[in-house]
């Protein structure tokens, strides 16, 4: 045994501790099963016949594998169009975050203009105002600006995120100032040193932000359903909520295959970028 935790190897020699440790492992096994069961069931229900999904008690594996549910699900609603809308919002938000918030945090962290402290607090103060208390005026504001039912209603406010600003500012603070001084001596303007030095060095924080922004764009169903009111602008989550979750006469098996397809991309993103995500979770502890 190389490492010890709360328990040491000698603790595990005692019979009582052995039993408790065994129970604990059992609890974790049950927890793991509970976590995975609904996800697995969503997949297998998507492959059953409609009758089998509604039978009682539910079976884990399908009796017959109905792969034809997937083409049916794909054609049930215009998934590619909704997917395109979601990706458009994701891409625009990411670009906006990197350009607007990235430049601002770079300026606060590196250039230190006079009154930067005041500007910093002006931005950070918004963290302490609960989002739901200004949700309705926010909607009215967008309506008065004439931005409803346009992508700009998502892209522009994406530049007003104090939490992402804080993450980037902390990251820039950690870059050695000598690099920027060297660039300045070589004649680089601030713009060049942001684009050619800060951005390439900041790939880890941008990846983290990209994951955050992706999951927001992918998961948010309520706000887009208010802001976008024609069908061709709905995001994927909004469309699923309106046409699948609230559908009355729909085959349960097809419903589950749609849900499964929607669930797959974020799960792959998670499994692919595990290290980034595990780290970013501990970042979010600082979130206000």
């Amino acid at each position, binding site marked *: 045994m190389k490492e010890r935790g709360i328990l040491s190897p000698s603790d595990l020699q005692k019979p009582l501790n052995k039993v408790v440790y065994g129970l*604990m492992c059992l609890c974790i096994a049950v927890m793991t099963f509970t976590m995975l069961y609904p996800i697995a069931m969503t997949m297998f229900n998507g492959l059953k016949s409609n009758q089998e999904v509604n039978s009682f008690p539910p079976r884990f594996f399908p009796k017959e594998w109905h792969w034809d549910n997937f083409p049916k699900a794909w054609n049930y609603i215009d998934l590619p169009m909704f997917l395109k809308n979601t990706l458009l919002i994701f891409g625009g938000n990411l670009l906006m975050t990197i350009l607007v918030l990235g430049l601002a945090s770079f*300026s606060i962290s590196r250039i230190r203009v006079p009154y930067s402290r005041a500007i910093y607090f002006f931005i950070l103060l918004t963290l302490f105002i609960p989002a739901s208390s200004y949700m309705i005026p926010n909607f009215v504001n967008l309506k008065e600006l004439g931005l409803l039912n346009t992508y700009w209603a998502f892209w522009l406010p994406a530049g007003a995120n104090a939490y992402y600003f804080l993450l980037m500012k902390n990251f820039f603070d950690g870059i050695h100032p000598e690099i920027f001084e060297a660039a300045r001596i070589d004649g680089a303007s601030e713009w060049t040193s942001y684009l050619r030095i800060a951005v390439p060095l900041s790939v880890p924080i941008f990846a983290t932000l990209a994951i955050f922004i992706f999951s927001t764009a992918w998961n948010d169903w309520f706000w887009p359903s208010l802001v976008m009111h024609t069908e061709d602008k709905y995001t994927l989550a909004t469309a699923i909520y309106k046409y699948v979750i609230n559908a009355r006469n729909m085959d349960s098996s097809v419903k589950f295959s749609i849900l499964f397809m929607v669930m797959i991309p974020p799960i792959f993103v998670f499994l692919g970028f595990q290290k980034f995500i595990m780290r970013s979770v501990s970042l979010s502890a600082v979130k206000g």
Partner: protein
Amino acid sequence: MGEPVISPGNMQQNTVKASASVSRKPRRGSNWKQYMWGYLFLVPAIAIFIVFLWVPIIKGMVYSFYNIDFVKGNTFVGFDNYVKVFHNPDVLLSVRNTLYYMLLCLVIGFWVPIAASIAISELRWFQGFARIAAYLPFVVPGVVLYGMWRWMYDPVGPINALLGWFGADPVSFISDGRWSMVSIVFMETWQQFGSAMLIYLAGVLSIPRDWYEAAEIDGAGVWARIKYITLPSMRNLIVLMLILQLIGTSQAYQSQLALLDGGPNKATLTYALLTVKYAFTQLDYGAGTALGVLMFIVLSVLGVLQYKLNKEEY
């Protein structure tokens, strides 16, 4: 500063100092040129923060005194919105529901990630797997979650099948007013505890191992080690997470809206959901913002508390 002593070495030092102080506090003329880029970088962000964040926040205060009408224009109505809101018996009901929901989240959800993080940190095998499995539900999108758990909670769904094995009568978890809020809390705990668990896990793993070694040599049992070393080391983190959870749960409405629309018989009508309904079902934006302002006043107390704790820790 005092008189400069003139000697070659000192002179050099003085010139260096002088030029440094010049670059820190430049003359008025060079100010703009030197900081032009810095300000240019800040302008878009400041503009967007004003237009899309500060304007709504301040307008929220203003709008709560207005009757909002997109066609005829807004009219000032004084405290009418507040009076209207206070005369609605649903407001009191929704406050009670929200407090009940927050309490359930504490009782059912709050201790789970703490216990799980300590347990998983002790796993000798499959620790990585357990971590991923616990976090996986967190990446399931909300709409999928609702579809999934509607089926899980169905009178002929898997949970009732499990209860049937133990000989219990089937429960209609969602449509029964006594169970609906509990069901929502269970569903959300299932989804969200993994992310809190990872935060706690980082805390548990950062406790130096030799503290346990020393405690064990002094004869402390396993429980004593958890009680006197692990939990006290996590104290600040736990309090911080508690406040974050209170701030989050006091504003919850999405699951309640998606699964039950506040029903059955208003049993899951939370305060934030009532605000949303005022605005987007009854189209009474004034009353909705008035509810938002009241919420803001209550929550800012919690926000200040969190800020103080955050400062303590970092």
